[in-house]
């Protein structure tokens, strides 16, 4: 029950943040919420299915570029259309990529996803005329729920309607993912992580379930990627670079992949910690590297693992 209280408090704080927190801090919530959506999906693959993707920036990139193309090339400004299109394109690309990748596990899976991620990165970087190359593409201010909101200043738009829109998407994505992991389908994914050969004896087609998890995680990443666009107003290839894939894996480890909300917590801490460390020292990556090492060695369960004490192990019979 205390978990629900914490959750309600966190949601309440998120609702109040734009009203009480400094604008700058509220703005930082936007990338957090976008990453949180992507991480919910990534963790279905990582935490629940046991596959570590080092190429999920590919799908962040697809989501973000979908929004950029729709708003600046096709003059489609509806955020709902952008999100649906991002999800659909994410699934469309993930279907063949996933079909190839899920045939491999462990490091081979990771390397293959990394390779596909880099193919996409190189594509958006080099096809200058299509994607704007390293300059990127503008992601024009999207209309929310059919309201254009062009009259607002950028800050008012972002910490106002767009903030609550992102929050609503995050809440919805969380509810859907909660249902997914609690369903028999979610249980099947866990059995695959635990012991794929034994999962087969229950009639579970392991490769097919891994593929489902891959495609769902890609849809989440694409939706998260689309949400990342409006705050900066520009989408460039660094979003699809492999360090982005690394960052979201880091966020997942930081928060704890064994917990449903761990990765969300990880995204939150990552975003704010990165901002704070960057404001103090120029070599923030050094600090983050050290933090990652400490987590892997001393707290493999991540921050969520530290917060929820493990039940004492039963005595071995």
């Amino acid at each position, binding site marked *: 029950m205390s978990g629900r209280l914490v959750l309600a408090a966190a949601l309440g704080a998120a609702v109040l943040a734009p009203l009480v927190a400094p604008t700058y801090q509220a703005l930082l919530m936007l990338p957090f919420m976008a990453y949180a959506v992507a991480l919910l999906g990534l963790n279905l693959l990582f935490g629940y299915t046991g596959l570590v993707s080092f190429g999920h920036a590919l799908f962040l990139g697809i989501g973000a570029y979908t929004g950029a193309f729709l708003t600046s090339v096709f003059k489609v400004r509806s955020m709902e259309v952008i999100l649906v299109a991002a999800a659909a394109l994410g699934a469309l690309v993930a279907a063949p990529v996933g079909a190839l990748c899920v045939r491999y596990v462990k490091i081979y899976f990771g390397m293959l996803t990394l390779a596909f991620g880099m193919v996409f990165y190189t594509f958006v970087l080099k096809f200058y005329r299509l994607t704007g190359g390293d300059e990127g593409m503008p992601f024009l201010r999207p209309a929310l729920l059919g309201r254009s909101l062009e009259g607002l200043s950028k800050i008012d738009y972002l910490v106002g309607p767009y903030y609550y829109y992102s929050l609503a998407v995050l809440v919805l994505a969380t509810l859907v993912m909660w249902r997914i992991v609690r369903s*028999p389908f979610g*249980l099947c994914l866990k059995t695959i992580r635990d012991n794929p050969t034994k999962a087969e004896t*229950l009639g579970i087609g392991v490769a097919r379930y891994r593929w489902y998890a891959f495609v769902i995680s890609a849809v989440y990443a694409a939706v998260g990627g689309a949400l990342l666009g409006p705050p900066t107003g520009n989408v460039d290839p660094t979003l699809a670079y492999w360090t982005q894939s690394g960052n979201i894996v880091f966020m997942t480890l930081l928060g704890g992949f064994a917990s449903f909300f761990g990765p969300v917590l990880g995204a939150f801490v990552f975003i704010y910690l990165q901002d704070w460390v960057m404001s103090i020292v120029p070599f923030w990556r050094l600090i983050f590297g050290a933090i990652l090492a400490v987590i892997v060695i001393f707290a493999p369960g991540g921050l969520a693992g530290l917060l929820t004490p493990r039940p004492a*192990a*039963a005595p071995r019979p």
Partner: protein
Amino acid sequence: MLTVDALDVFIQASHILRSVSLDVGPREVVCLVGRNGAGKTTTLRTIMGYLRPHAGRVEFRGQPIHGRRTHEIAQLGVGWAPEDSGIFADLTVAENIEIATWTRSGGRPAAERIALAYRVFPMLRRYAARKGPELSGGERKMLSIARALALDPEMLLLDEPFEGLSPAIIPAVSAGIAAITELGHSILIAESNIHHVPESTRRLYVIERGTIVFAGAAQDAWRDPSLTRIIGSAA
């Protein structure tokens, strides 16, 4: 129900099974007895589709299943309780049983299948909320069999259900298996200890170095002095 015909199986370069044939009829309980390393587990793993036979056939309800994928064979109605139990550590006992009702739906309703699993192994109900690592070896074994049963299979493969168990828990496992043999499944049990063979076993196959050396009624096996060396030594 299940027919294994002249199976030859290699694991890498080793010739493990040499022309192994056996069959299990409808509602029949058959035991495959042999010493460790004789090829019992390899036979079951081949039936289950983990190993591809070099030659020979496996038929289940009249259709060939060698060459099918493991999950397809399970879907057809072959339940497997492996030697190492293979229960899912991150799932509770209840979830371990329930999942089988979902992965192979159809047939009897899930609630009935779950109730049956607990009726056969009542001890498991007490541990319903526990997870794999909190169970003893015997409890894992029971869970593994209960899970295979919850799949509502026509055929059950039990690989060494008594192996490595403490004597204290053997009666509970034994009672459960005896109860299962009353349910009307076809059952193939691999066993290294002849004393564990359930009483309802009509027919016995004895396997030695990858070859079936005896096939027949259980009581006849005892009369053959060359066999008592094999099956009698495993006590």
